[in-house]
């Protein structure tokens, strides 16, 4: 470290010196670029802090603020179930292992191209179980309904849930219903919890990830988030973008059968592929290098993202997953996922030793950039 005491308080010694590179001899020495990076890394290794005194929407966006909220409020209160905070927890039950997961669905609008709150509520929880290595079995569903919500719409959502559950091979076997006064909720909120069974011998975890492993994504990214954004109708853009909402169970099982040595899996929901890759890099202590031109993004989605200044890497998905597979198993793994319905599946990057703990994207003309976790909500730029 630099031993520079001068962080935070400027002490008035920083008026423009007339030397453009800021390295004026005789004045306080400014640290080099490498020193600054080291200082930032040190700052980032500190536990996340929650500085706000009220919850803001950024705390729900799935990025850094969400992590800070979960760490400082919930992990502080409930403790940590394991080395990682996964989307599903595994528990030993009389000789076998079960996976247990829960998620709330508050999407607005309730219907959007290609899907609805109903199939999302089933697929989201099913997928959290599937990527933990479990075979999803049973779901619960709890409904918070705003007074005045049309029964016909509720019926339609329930039908969507049933259809999605049948497709995913799960049964919705318990539930709860609450109605709150007008204004106390926004139409309909649904919470599902799910239980899956983990076949004997299946072990996944970031601790198994090694340098040279490859990253596989099972389909095009950013469809869901962009479909919802379009359906909100605020944008003066019309594009035929549909959600990718679907259960990934079939693809996951095909992958695990073809390549049982899969190291780690997760689905890139809120926060997108960029946030997922950061969680992976942090959890395994190695670097993740993504190949920009290999990441599948439909042209229509890329166009809409470009127009709005949104990075597809941070847009939510609801029907794909990312798996880390050993290098030599990668071609087999890819073929298996493609054959099981992941037509756009691709190998999108590798695990590298350096820089450790971070995610880098290389583009086709040799440039590289860092991909950090999402900060706040992805919002359109203004010009």
């Amino acid at each position: 470290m630099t031993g520079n005491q001068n962080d935070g308080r400027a002490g008035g010694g920083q008026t423009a010196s007339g030397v453009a590179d800021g390295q004026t001899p005789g004045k306080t020495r400014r640290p080099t670029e490498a020193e600054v990076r080291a200082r930032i890394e040190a700052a980032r290794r500190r536990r996340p802090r929650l500085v706000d005194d009220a919850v803001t929407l950024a705390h729900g966006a799935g990025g850094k603020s969400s992590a800070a909220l979960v760490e400082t409020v919930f992990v502080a209160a409930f403790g940590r179930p394991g080395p990682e905070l996964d989307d599903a927890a595994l528990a030993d039950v009389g000789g076998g292992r079960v996976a247990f997961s829960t998620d709330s669905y508050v999407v607005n609008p309730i219907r959007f191209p290609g899907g609805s709150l109903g199939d999302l509520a089933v697929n989201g929880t099913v997928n959290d179980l599937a990527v933990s290595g479990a075979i999803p079995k049973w779901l619960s569903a709890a409904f918070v309904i705003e007074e005045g919500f049309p029964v016909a719409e509720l019926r339609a959502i329930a039908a969507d849930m049933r259809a999605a559950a049948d497709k995913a091979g799960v049964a919705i076997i318990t539930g709860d219903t609450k109605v709150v006064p007008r204004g106390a909720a926004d139409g309909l909120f649904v919470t599902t919890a799910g239980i899956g069974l983990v076949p004997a011998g299946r072990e996944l975890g970031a601790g198994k990830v090694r340098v040279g492993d490859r990253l596989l994504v099972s389909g095009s990214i950013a469809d869901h988030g962009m479909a919802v954004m379009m359906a909100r109708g605020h944008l003066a853009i019309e594009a035929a973008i549909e959600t990718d909402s679907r259960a990934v169970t079939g693809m996951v099982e095909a992958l695990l059968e073809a390549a049982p040595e899969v190291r780690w899996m997760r689905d890139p929901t809120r926060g997108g592929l960029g946030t997922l890759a950061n969680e992976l890099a942090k959890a395994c202590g190695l670097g993740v290098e993504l190949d920009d031109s290999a990441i599948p993004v439909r042209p229509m989605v890329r166009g809409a993202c470009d127009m709005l200044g949104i990075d597809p890497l941070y847009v939510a998905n609801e029907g794909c997953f990312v798996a880390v597979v050993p290098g030599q198993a990668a071609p087999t793994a890819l073929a298996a996922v493609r054959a099981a319905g992941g037509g756009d599946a691709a190998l999108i990057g590798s695990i590298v030793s350096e820089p450790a703990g971070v995610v880098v994207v290389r583009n086709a003309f040799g440039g590289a950039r860092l991909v950090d976790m999402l900060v706040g909500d992805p919002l359109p730029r203004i010009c």
Partner: protein
Amino acid sequence: MDYVDEFRDPQDAKRLLKAVAALAERLGRTVRLMEVCGGHTHTIYRYGLERLLPESVEFVHGPGCPVCVIPMGRVDDAVHLASRPGVIFTTFGDMMRVPGTGGSLLQAQARGADIRFVYSPLDALKVARDNPDREVVFFAVGFETTAPSTAVTVARAAAFGLENFSVFCNHVTIAPPLRALLDGDDLALDGFIGPGHVATVVGARHFDFIPAEYGLPLVVTGFEPLDILQAVEMLLEQHVDGRRLVENQYARVVRPEGNRAALSLMGEVFAVRESFEWRGLGFIERSGYRLADAYARFDAEVRFDMPGVRVADPPACECGSVLKGLIKPWQCRVFGTGCTPENPIGTCMVSPEGACAAYYNFARV
């Protein structure tokens, strides 16, 4: 949507990089080019262009990020307006996280202020028509790029005879801050990557004063990585050939005379302020717009009592030096430690187009 791919072609990029390297070698000295617009800064870092170019070609990040140049006092005014009972405050998403003295708009929203994101000022107008019993205020920021859409909105509000709509106008104009920078003697520059979107409105000719009065070349430039590489090539060629001109790399969009209809509507709806405060740059004469007297009833600053207090920038923040191109983002003493995108101190760390955010998000590799 395929039109962008030709501006991201790797083969063309390699060809341009080679040409730039050859020109840089012929020049044999450091060339400092200021990209005025935050959109350019974003592209430069996002595609890692800085590291692909020869070391002797240096980018200096300019004052063209509209979020970055808003002083803290104006953010406080916005929070004040947004927190008034009965007000629906509408804003572009970028402004939500800019810190004011008493917190950001995002924090005001969490405390109960009715703040809504819009993607265009016309959306704010729709909010006003849908909520006739509420006062709807639009937080207008930006250069000549966004000013025309605010002008259209105000003209339309007048045509509809809307009584509950007003604009908190923070629009600024591009030439005065460039003059202020060039008139200061801190800055050694060799040319400008000119703002493509602003030039769409004001025209490429608007920048003739840069070669004429300051002897520097300027190339009006698009926002794809190849646009920027080509602009660098054109600027270096001018130096090699001893020319000093405004050239238009972004001719697929920008005309020499700009958009006359937009300019004339802006002339009708806006009046130039005597002086406007810029973050880090201080007060610059005739650099900002307010609503013209004929539209004063739509001016939030006329309609409501505003604190209008000038607030000094936080002492630790060196956004001013970054915006003037005097230091690189990472040379700021709080960069990446005290000031990060999730807890920004300065505006340059908030907007994705801010030099600090662009460097922090993309270039720490």
